[in-house]
Structures are given as structure tokens and as C-alpha cells.
């Protein structure tokens, strides 16, 4: 996937029955940059991310994915091909092993000849030795790393990270920082939702949710 994807959102609001999660949220994320979404617990960071990746509809407002060269808008049905996401609420299959999980996701994502790529991703997150271990037996840190592996598996132009450093040890967090820097270098658009002071530093732009 060459060429970057720019993400724009305008006047977003979300209400669940009588509870308003947030209102009037706007922002943009550019290729090569990191948009940090910050806010106290319960301010709706994860909800916002879910809306931005197209899994949830906003009550009001617009979200647009635009090709950075040319500015053509990408239709909603194709958003999912442009993105990878790491989130606490999104899990992998507990009864499959690490490699089976990646193979499955690669296949349904339409990747051909994906075996090498799956191994490569597992290796880059340090899970290659555990590739045949059933995910149920993983530690929380291993879970997190596998989630990151699946997010970069198809090399998407947009990467969503929701509290990515949670459950990672300090070495893992260093590695994560390098990963984010690496993604930026390759012209990827990174959207990061976090409370962590260190992670907030990685942001080149910021959207703060009042909560």
C-alpha cells in the first residue's frame, strides 16, 4: 500500500440513549504524523477510536478517509482495508495458536502467500518461539504483542493504537516507541489514544476529550 491516507473528522458527537459520551470533537491525522487523543478515564477515547475505524456510527458529525496524493475520498466499505487497530476491547481467538490466528486474519484480509509475512510479524514482536502456543495460555504482555502483530500484518496506511503500552514491560514499551517512529518514517498515519504521559509525548498533534 503506497501513498498515505489522511484522516479527517468533524463535529463528532456520540450519545448512548441518554448518556452523552462526547460532543463537537474535530481533528485530523496526517501521514507521517501521530495524532494523540487524550482525556481522563471515561471521556470516550476508545469510543472515538471505534467511530474512527468505522465500527460504530457517530450520532452526529463526519469521518473521512482521504488519499494524500489526489485527495480522493475512500468510501466507508473500504476503510477497513486501510487500517490496523490494537485495542483492549478487541481480542484474538483463544483456542487457536498465535500462528493460526495470524494466518486466518491474513487469509480473510485477502493476503496471498502470507505465511512468510505472518512469521515475520511474529518475529518482530518477539513471539516467534511461541507461535504454536494456544493463545489462551498467553500472558497479558504476550496478548498485547500478538495484537500489535495482527495490526501491522497487512501493512495498513493507518494504525490505531488504544492504550498500546498497557501490559507491556519497559523493554516492550521501548520497542513500541521504536515501532511508532518506524511507522511514521514509512509515511503511516498513527492515531494514538492514551493516558500515559510517555505515550502522549509521541503525539505530533493532540485532540483532548473533556470527559
Amino acid at each position, binding site marked *: 500500500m503506497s501513498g498515505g491516507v489522511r484522516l479527517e473528522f468533524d463535529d463528532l*458527537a456520540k*450519545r*448512548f*440513549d*441518554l448518556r*452523552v459520551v462526547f*460532543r463537537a470533537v474535530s481533528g485530523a491525522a496526517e501521514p507521517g504524523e501521530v495524532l494523540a487523543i487524550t482525556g481522563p478515564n471515561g471521556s470516550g477515547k476508545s469510543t472515538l477510536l471505534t467511530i474512527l475505524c468505522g465500527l460504530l*456510527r457517530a*450520532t*452526529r458529525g463526519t469521518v473521512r478517509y482521504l488519499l494524500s496524493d489526489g485527495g480522493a475520498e475512500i468510501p466507508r466499505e473500504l476503510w477497513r482495508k486501510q487500517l490496523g487497530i490494537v485495542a483492549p476491547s478487541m481480542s484474538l481467538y483463544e483456542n487457536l495458536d498465535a500462528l493460526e490466528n495470524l494466518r486466518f486474519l491474513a487469509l480473510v484480509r485477502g493476503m496471498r502467500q502470507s505465511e512468510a509475512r505472518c512469521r515475520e510479524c511474529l518475529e518482530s514482536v518477539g513471539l516467534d518461539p511461541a507461535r504454536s502456543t494456544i493463545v489462551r495460555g498467553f500472558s497479558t504482555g504476550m496478548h498485547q504483542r500478538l495484537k500489535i502483530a495482527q495490526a501491522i500484518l497487512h501493512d495498513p496506511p493507518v494504525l490505531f493504537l488504544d492504550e498500546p503500552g498497557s501490559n507491556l514491560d519497559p523493554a516492550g514499551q521501548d520497542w513500541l516507541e521504536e515501532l511508532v517512529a518506524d511507522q511514521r518514517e514509512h509515511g503511516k498515519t498513527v492515531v494514538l489514544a492514551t493516558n500515559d504521559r510517555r505515550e502522549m509525548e509521541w503525539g505530533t498533534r493532540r485532540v483532548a476529550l473533556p470527559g
Partner: protein
Amino acid sequence: MGTVLRWVLFVWMAVIIWAAFYYAPAASGFQGQSSRIVFFHVPTAWVATLAFLVSCIASIRYLRSRDPKEDIRASVAGALGLTFAILATVTGSIFARIMWGSYWNWDPRETSITFLLLIYAAYFALRAAIADPERRATMSAVYAILAFVTVPFLVFVVPRIYWSLHPDTIINTQGRIKMDSRMFQVLMGSLVGFTGVFSWLYSLECRVEGIRRRRQHEVL
């Protein structure tokens, strides 16, 4: 509905009710005056079916436009349909008891109205179980359409194999209306009247529901 029309409807229904008991004769072959129930039973069954149709059309339109007004229409029509379906079942059951001694016999018409009742009940159970308003609207619209495509199979294909208790196979053995002309007039009048009542209740409820939802939205 305009005030004039409402008064017309009121007078119309009053006339129909009087006519049902005094103008039309009691049909022969029925116990006493019991045949008069047809002037109320048939229209309620008709309205129950009409409401279902309205609900389905609104559901399809909702899925195309995502306009919340269509969801209001679908759910209001559904609620009215449920009420009229219950009325039809009850009036039918009373009639069956008078005529044939048992409250329920599972003849094709009775089965169809039960089916409609089950669908309405399921529709509202589904709506009650989903918290998010947009998802509730979408899922119930899909279910309404699923139910709709099953109806022809129940109503048309099933009865071809079963005999029917229902009077019109006794009254219309040749499939034509062989009813006394006065009875026919009152029946048609009643159909029109009940459709009018449905129309009035429908537009009223849609407005009320629209206001209720707008008030909720003001929170946002």
C-alpha cells in the same frame, strides 16, 4: 388528521356500529345474532395485516435512508398492528366458541393471525433488547423484512393443504361474495371505518413518538 375529517370518522363509526346491530340482518345458519361479530372481526384482522404492510415498507425505507422518522413509522405501525391482531384473535375466538363450541381450532386463518401475533411479539422483544437507537432501528427493520418474506409461504402455500373452518368457505363456496347486500354494505363500511381509525391513530402516534424522541435528543 384535520378536525373535519375526525368528526366525519366519528360519525361514520357511530353509524356503522348502529348499522351492524340494526340495519344489517342476522345471517342465516349462524347462532342468533352472533354473525354480527363479522363486522368487527374482519376489519380488525384486515387492519392488523395492513399495519404489518405499513411497518415493512417503513422498514425497507429506513434501511435505505436511515431516516429516524421511518423507524418511528415502523414501530408505531407495529404497535397498532399488535393491538389489532390481539383484537382480531379475541373476536374470532369468541365467535368460534359460539358457533362451533371451541375457542381455538388452528384453521389456516387462525394460524395466520397467530403467526402475525408471534411476529409482532418477536419484533417488540427484539426492540426491547437493544439499547442503541440506530442499531435497534436497523435490526428491527431487518427482522420485519425477514418476517415479511415468510408470510406468503404461510398464508398461501400452507392453506392449500388444509380445510378451513372459516365461514367464507361456507358462505362463498364459489369464491364469490354471496352475502346479503345489506350485510355487505355494512361490512365494507366497517372496513373503511376501521381503516380510518387506524390511519388516525397512526398519524397521532407518529407525532407523539416524534416529539418524545426530539425531547430526548435535546439532551445532546
